[in-house]
């Protein structure tokens, strides 16, 4: 096995990790703010892929347009979900909202399955992104490079947004104590809707970006949802850096597992998760507050 091959696989692991980063960032922000573990996150990811499919293959639109529109559409759907359904249950124990999102997950998956049939659909990589690019030390597929680039930019953008802008400061404050923010005269319910929309939009973006790498099908969100949970458990809930590191670890573990020990490829991340739980139950960068 030559070095170049290993390098390519490492990069593939990073590209896969990118999807986990996009998803777990949304999951973490939503959880931090609303106290809801969004089980519908995987379904929103799938919805992003189907939005892209509809825009490109059915409406014969442009791929770039789909990459921009799909997250907006999914984000809007997320905002509607939050403001019509989740909102009703904030005063009750958190697990009711979690169960509600579980129900929404089933509902969305089955609805898509009824509309588009349970069969997988092919989604073509746009022509200009086919083929590989020479990075000097290896050849790497253009499309995966794009994914890496987009994720890196977004992660920096989100960090900048949360740390440097006023709205970001409000969101961070709301994560610590949303009642206090509300008492200080900021309409927290609008922020809740916005945050849920943002998280949903990130999931939608991950979905539309993932579509060309695989066939899309109505239940594609379930697997990635549990893997995203593993990312968040490893990285620690409520930490942006934890999401990024956890995403990379899980992406690499899956990619490397497939090469070195295929039968265990799917199980490796759970074993790693169990080890983290044993040694550091709140995850690598988890905040004590969320763990309590």
């Amino acid at each position, binding site marked *: 096995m030559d070095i170049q091959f290993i390098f390519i696989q490492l990069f593939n692991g990073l590209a896969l990790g990118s999807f986990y980063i996009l998803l777990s960032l949304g999951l973490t922000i939503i959880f931090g703010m609303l106290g809801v573990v969004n089980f519908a996150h995987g379904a929103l990811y799938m919805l992003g892929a189907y939005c892209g499919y509809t825009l490109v293959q059915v409406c014969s639109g442009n791929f770039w347009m789909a990459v921009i529109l799909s997250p907006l559409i999914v984000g809007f759907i997320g905002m509607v979900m939050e403001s019509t359904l989740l909102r*009703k249950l904030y005063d009750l124990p958190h697990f009711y909202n979690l169960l509600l999102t*579980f129900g929404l997950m089933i509902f969305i998956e089955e609805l898509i399955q009824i509309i588009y049939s349970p069969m997988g659909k092919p989604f073509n990589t746009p022509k200009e992104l086919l083929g590989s690019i020479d990075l000097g030390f290896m050849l790497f597929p253009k499309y995966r490079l794009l994914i890496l680039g987009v994720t890196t930019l977004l992660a920096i953008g989100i960090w900048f947004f949360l740390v440097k802008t006023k709205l970001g400061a409000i969101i961070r404050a709301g994560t610590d104590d949303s009642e206090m923010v509300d008492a200080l005269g900021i309409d927290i319910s609008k922020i809740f809707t916005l945050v849920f929309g943002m998280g949903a939009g990130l999931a939608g973006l991950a979905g539309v970006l993932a579509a060309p790498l695989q066939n899309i099908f109505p239940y594609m969100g379930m697997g990635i949802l549990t893997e995203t949970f593993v990312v968040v458990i490893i990285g620690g809930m409520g930490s942006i850096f934890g999401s990024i590191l956890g995403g990379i670890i899980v992406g690499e573990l899956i990619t490397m597992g497939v090469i070195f020990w295929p039968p265990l490829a799917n199980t490796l991340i759970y074993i790693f998760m169990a080890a983290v739980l044993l040694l550091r139950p709140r995850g690598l960068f988890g905040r004590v507050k969320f763990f309590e």
Partner: protein
Amino acid sequence: MEALGILSFIRNRWVVFLLIPLFISLPFLTPHHSLASEMLIFAIFAMGYDILFGYTGLLSFGHAIFFGAGAYTSGLILIKLQAPLFVGLLGGIFVSLMIALIIGFLSVRIKGIYFVMVTLAFCQMFYFIALKWSGLTGGDNGLHGVPRPSIGPIHLDSEIRLYYLVLMLFVLCLLLALRIVRSPFGRALQSLKSNEDRAKSIGFNTNHFKLISFLISAFFGALAGGLYALHLNFVPLETLNIMTSGDVVIMSIIGGIGTLYGPIFGAMLLVYLKNLLSAWTEQWNFIMGILFITSVLTLRRGILVEVKQRLFHKR
């Protein structure tokens, strides 16, 4: 006096006396005999789950593991070893309890929302293991050819006889569950649910109690799983699917958590409905999703309580 005592005993428990003939005749009331067995199997699963979720306040999305492990292990023991029926069931329970001990040890230290995610992740792991280890489990096709050994002279090839075996075990489980929740131990579990910090400060080792509650619910799940393998003569891979965990959660919510009887009723209702609706639509899961959403939004105290409230106490 004696006769009066019996009368008041009957009057206070008239529901129970109505239910006895209902349960005995259940297989003759359902569209086919085996549906009655399935209803009670899931009732056993749900009542054990209620001890964890309803009484201890821990929401697990991993209980498909114990149901599935019980089903697969019992099935394998009965197929490969040609063992007696109860050996198969006990073997399934034993393996499930071992798994529950490990998962419980790793997850009860973790609070609230994290617990849900960890149990769900383990559920997916066991699903993958069963899927990939197809030499043992049959993979995607499931484990076929689970026999139903006779118990002494009683052959279980008839669905009716299997139902009465399930009914007998169901009654034993119910008595056990009632004994548990009404014992001082059960009270301690409920104190964890209402205020864990306070329970800890008066000297309870709360993690210990949570682990035992986890094991108890795994025990019921494994028994139900083993019976499910007998009932189908086959173990589908779906027993380990996260949706199976979701099923038992929704059964509990629809029936009303923390009541034991509620989840039993919820399980029987849901299994019956599923059977009824599957006959005229393929979109059972779609209905399930809507059911999930509406019951979380409107039936949180259980369908019986909510309906009663809305009919008799109009607000």
